[in-house]
């Protein structure tokens, strides 16, 4: 070993120097460089972000002070739109609605209670539904046409004829069939309003009488 060191001391010294240089680079320089690059990248990204934010915020300087009032106006507009829709329709409401239709259509209507179907969920959580009511009718052809026209022009309720069957007896000029009506309902948090029904005379001593 002694002979080896004696013979190759210069090589050993050179290797030592190179190793020291490598240690310097790997242990000190490179980590420091990585840390520097990271810090630099972080700062640059923060600066870029800040610059972007400044530019972005300045872009909206002109509308500051108007956005809040405008949001209120949108809210009112939305409620104004919603006001055209009816709310929940319990069985008693449906009876009243059918009575309204009878008056509107000029015919007696036979029906069964309808059920609600989901149509859409709006972005503010309001739910658009439809009450599907099937009514049976018997009228003349003109009466049928009037029914459709009245549904189209009625400004109280928003109702669409979803399906219809019609059979016509030419001899008696009778059009009979069924209408499947889609009555649009919107739930937007409004309170249910109990229908105002005129009370008949009440009070009996024998309920079977």
């Amino acid at each position: 070993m002694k002979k080896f060191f004696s013979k190759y001391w210069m090589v050993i010294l050179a290797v030592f120097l190179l190793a020291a240089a490598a240690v310097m680079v790997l242990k000190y320089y490179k980590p420091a460089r990585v840390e520097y690059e990271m810090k630099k990248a972080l700062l640059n990204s923060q600066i870029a972000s800040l610059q972007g934010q400044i530019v972005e915020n300045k872009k909206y300087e002109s509308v500051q002070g108007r956005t809040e009032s405008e949001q209120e106006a949108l809210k009112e507009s939305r409620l104004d739109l919603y006001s055209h829709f009816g709310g929940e329709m319990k069985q008693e409401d449906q009876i009243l609605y059918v009575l309204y239709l009878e008056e509107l259509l000029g015919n007696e209507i036979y029906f069964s209670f309808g059920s609600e179907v989901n149509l859409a969920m709006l972005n503010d959580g309001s739910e658009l539904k439809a009450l599907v009511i099937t009514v049976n009718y018997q009228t003349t052809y003109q009466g049928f046409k009037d029914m459709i026209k009245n549904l189209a022009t009625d400004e109280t309720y928003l109702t669409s004829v979803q399906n219809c069957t019609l059979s016509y007896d030419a001899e008696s000029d009778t059009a009979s069939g069924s209408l499947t009506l889609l009555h649009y309902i919107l739930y937007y948090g409004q309170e249910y309003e109990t229908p105002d029904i005129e009370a008949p005379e009440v009070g009996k001593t024998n309920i079977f009488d």
Partner: protein
Amino acid sequence: MNSKLTGKALIVQLGSRGMRVACMSLGKSPKLRGSAYVPLPEGSVEDGSILQPEAVEQELKAVMDRPEFRHVKKVIFTLCSTQVLSEAVTVRSMNGRRSASAVDDKMMEKTLDTNRDVYFPVDTRNCRLVWTGIGPAESEDGSPARSVQLWAVPNTLIAGYYSLANACGLTVVAVDYCGNSFAGAAGASFAVPTHHHKKKEKKPRVRKSAKAAGDESADGPTAVLTEDVDEHDESETVLYLLPDTDFLLMTFVRDGQILRQRILARGAQSGDELEDARMVLELYKTERLDSGHIRAVVCGAGAQDRSYIRSVEDILYLPAEGTDGVLGSDFCLCAGAAATRLDFGGRTLNFPGKQSFVRQFWQYGFIAVGAAALVGAIVMYYGASTSWGFTLDGLEDTQQRLSLELAPISGYAQNWDDYEVYYNRYASDWQTLLGTVAEDGTIEPGILRTYNDNLFLILEELEGMLPTGASITEIGIAPQGVGLQIACEDKLQAAYLILALRSLQYGEEPVYISNLTVGQGEPASGVLSLLVPSVAADSGETEAPPTEGSSQSRSSAFAGSGLTNAEQDELVAIADKVSAGKTLTDDELNRTKTLIRKAPDEKRRPIALALCDETSNDKYSLSTLLGSASITQRRAAFSEMMGNPFALYLFAELAMDDPDMLGTIMGFCFVHQDLLPEGVTEKIMSLMPQLVAGNANALNELIPEFENMDTKDMRILLNEFIRDDDNLADCEGLVSRDAELSKVYVFYLVSEMRLDPNGGSVPGASAEPTPDPDEGLREVPSDSSLLYDPENDKYVDKESGEYVDRDSKDLFDLRTGLLIDRKTKRLLDPETKEPIDPKNDPRMAAYTWDVKSYIDGQGLNSFDIDWDKLDWTAINWRTMSQEDIIDELKRQSRDQLWTGPEIDPKTGLEIDPDTGLLHDPKTGAYINPDTGRMVDKDGNPVDPLTIPAFAQLAPLMSAAGVDTGSIDWSGIDWREMDWSNLVSLGNLRKIAAQVVSQQTGGSGGLELDPQTGLLHDSRTGLYIDPDTGRLVDRNGNPIDPQNDPAFSQFLPMLEQFLGLAGVDAGDIDWSRIDWRNMDWSNPASNANIQELLRQIAEHSAGGLVQSGDIYVDRNTGHLMDSRTGLVVNPATDARLSTLVNTLGQVLAQVGVNINAVNWNNIDWRGINISNPGREDLLNLVQQIMAQQGMTGGEFPGEFPEIPEQDTRTYFTVAIPYKEALLKAELERKGLSEEDMREKLILEGEQ
């Protein structure tokens, strides 16, 4: 001659037995610093020649490593060899000069070199000449001359010494001859003593030496300084004898001058050389005529050897004595060489420091590099750190400055974002409800749809255009339009009306117009579904429905879907991704389903279809493609289609509506429960008995579970499902019943079969795209070995007929579009020529899928296949079919993986090498190959139900209606089972067939009863008419199999299996079945089931009627359903309701309740069932009256009037509304898009 020698040097003397090395300081008074004698291997040195340089080098290096010799880099060799020739020569002056000095050194060298042949009797051309002056002389003619001592040294001899020195890193400062070395040690000289010159003439003491002969590179004359010798008696001659191991050096010295010197080789016998020495002595005496006193002095190693001295005295007859001091030393020659002024060597051979220098330079360079690197690293680190610090400080300052600048305005963007989000939601909701009108006038309808206006206006419009003889007989109303059934007086009137309907003011052009019929039209409500995908968006135009793939089609589909624009865009983006062939993420798959299901029921299918528009193809017929595609292509195409979430949705909807398909999938799921969510598995298990019994309600209960499955899970399930060929065929059958989904499947098949998407011929399954030299191929001018195939735009090797790459000539596969390297046998990408990863490359999917499946099915792991090791050149792409290629890959893959025992080719089971039994490693079962019975590994019979994998068969068989208690499981032949899926439906059928066989016993065919002439089955006791094949009693009378006790034992099993095939056994007219070709060893066998189905299908074909119609069997007079081939029951079939109602009215008049009619006995031949007239009804009434036992069957009284037949021409149309009207109606109700508030506008946007 050497210049003045200084410093320390090694003096080396080589002998045949050893080497003397002395370290001496050079100069006027050389001093011995150290000495060593090293034995040398025998034969390494002979007579001064180095024969084994490595051995000598090794020994010399060993000496040099000793402390006293270390760091000495110079060497002087003293050459001891008889090969060195020595002669005293007199050279005459050639230019007539009178003085001796006139013979100058230059002239001397020339003369010596020219006359070397004269001086030496041997060839000395390869010798180096060295001389030293003796003194002036006279030639024979009295002219002045010079005497010199001349040596000839062989070049080869000294070259070895230089090589040795070079190898040891030493510089040869001189090579001395031992004679000269001795002269130096003895203080003698070859020159005439000085006082002799003074006596004769005054001559300078210093003379020039000669340049070495043949040494042209010698850098100048060498000089010899002759030293004054010690004072001697001028009359006495001293003979110095230096005995060494190899030689004896004799030197005659008188008066300090060496008169003669001879070197004698020493013989084996000590003293032999003294005999030669005596002869030399005698010769000396004779030549010199010198009678003076001569004494002998023994030097060197012999100086202390008294016996040798006595030998000298005895043999030479001279007084002899030993000496001491330097001459008495073993190293006397080394001491003499240290003072030599002559160099017998050649400097051109001296490369002492070359290796050393090179080595050292390299080492110094290395150190320099290392040092530079270290310094550089340090400088770089500290320099960079400083620089970085400055940079970071600057950046931090900038950051802080910008932060301060941002602080007062930081909320502006957020406020705007909040507002924008709020506004977008507001606008989106508004548009969701009311729709939008684009700049080009295109209407995107919202959810709110009140078509009352449209309906009213269209009715009024119809009133104005209907001919007086025509009438609307039926109206169907849907949200998007109306369906009208119209009755016209004749065809011309119908044509007029159709023309008028094409230009309605309040409706679009009809999307559907039925065929004309007489008396009855297509229901108006039945055409309403056609309105959905074709609602036109433009109110003013009457163009054809949107083309596939157009955004218009999609927008129409989305109309009224309730999906926001963002959601619609999301779906379109997913559809685009699918059509681009990209893989969807799990989230995208599930999101697709969520969004589709968000739409109303009636909109889901249109949306899914519209989003499949880019993945549809109507250029080919699905049936044509299915007839040509291989099973692998079909499976791959179907699997790809299931990757399209829209197609998957459509298929799932179809499957949920098809009880047969749903039942089959349920059965599959029962076996592969791991593919299902836990809840579904449990539900299937609980409902299994009902499912097997064909209970439709049970299926309906499961549908929601499947609908709620993740799209990804559903896809996995279906992919596994279609791995079975039959299942795949079932799925394809289902798809083929849906025209739109068929187009989607066609798209994927076309892609998989690599057909032209724009249409073209469909090659047959065996018609691979192989080149035909006689048709269509063209010569390639630049390469005569190739042909060009214009159809495929590829090149064909003329000789082999293979498709090849034009440049590399590698094999080219048309099916995958890949190259095969002939050398490495690997698959290459045709563009990059780089190897691909066959296992994961999508182009290989058609092959890898099957191979992986097969390998995994064998209980091995396909992941272990090293696809790069597969020999792709073993596949003949030109001649092998797709299946052959897959088989070859399977074989190679299996060979690569399989290290187990031999496989039975029939069953696919392992053959136990010890017992020869068949063995299934998955279940652990052993099968006797001869009997097919289950045995243990020693061959002893075992009960199969004791093996866990087989135990699950019992409940399944029980669920299928088989009395498992009566099954002899140990008697089952298991050889024909499908071992890849033990509980498959096929296996259950095979087991059931064997069970029936067990229960009926025996085997064999029908026997001909000689007494009755009927065919007879002795096991069941049944008789068959040999002519008709029908079941009869012993007398040949037909029997009703359903009521026959012998036959009824098979009936439940047959009904069960027919039910699985989608046939209700209750509808079968068993009496019409031909039983002759049945397998009577097992009436409920699979083959029999197939035969039954075949006969049912055959009966249904008829050849005369359309599928779905009712026709009259000409042989039996029964009413038959052409679709099912079954007898129709008029009392319950809606298609006969009109006839039955009319008949009922007539029968009521004769007191017969139509419900009491036995329709099986009615002969319908000759009766017009589609439009029965009076005679037809009378015929039926008479048959029924006869059936009821009424006398004569005559109609009592007058036959009632038959209602007049309607002969008007009917057709049905579907007319979509115009959307523009919708807007007006909503506005009238106070709902208008115009009321929506405008969004704030930014300055930059103004």
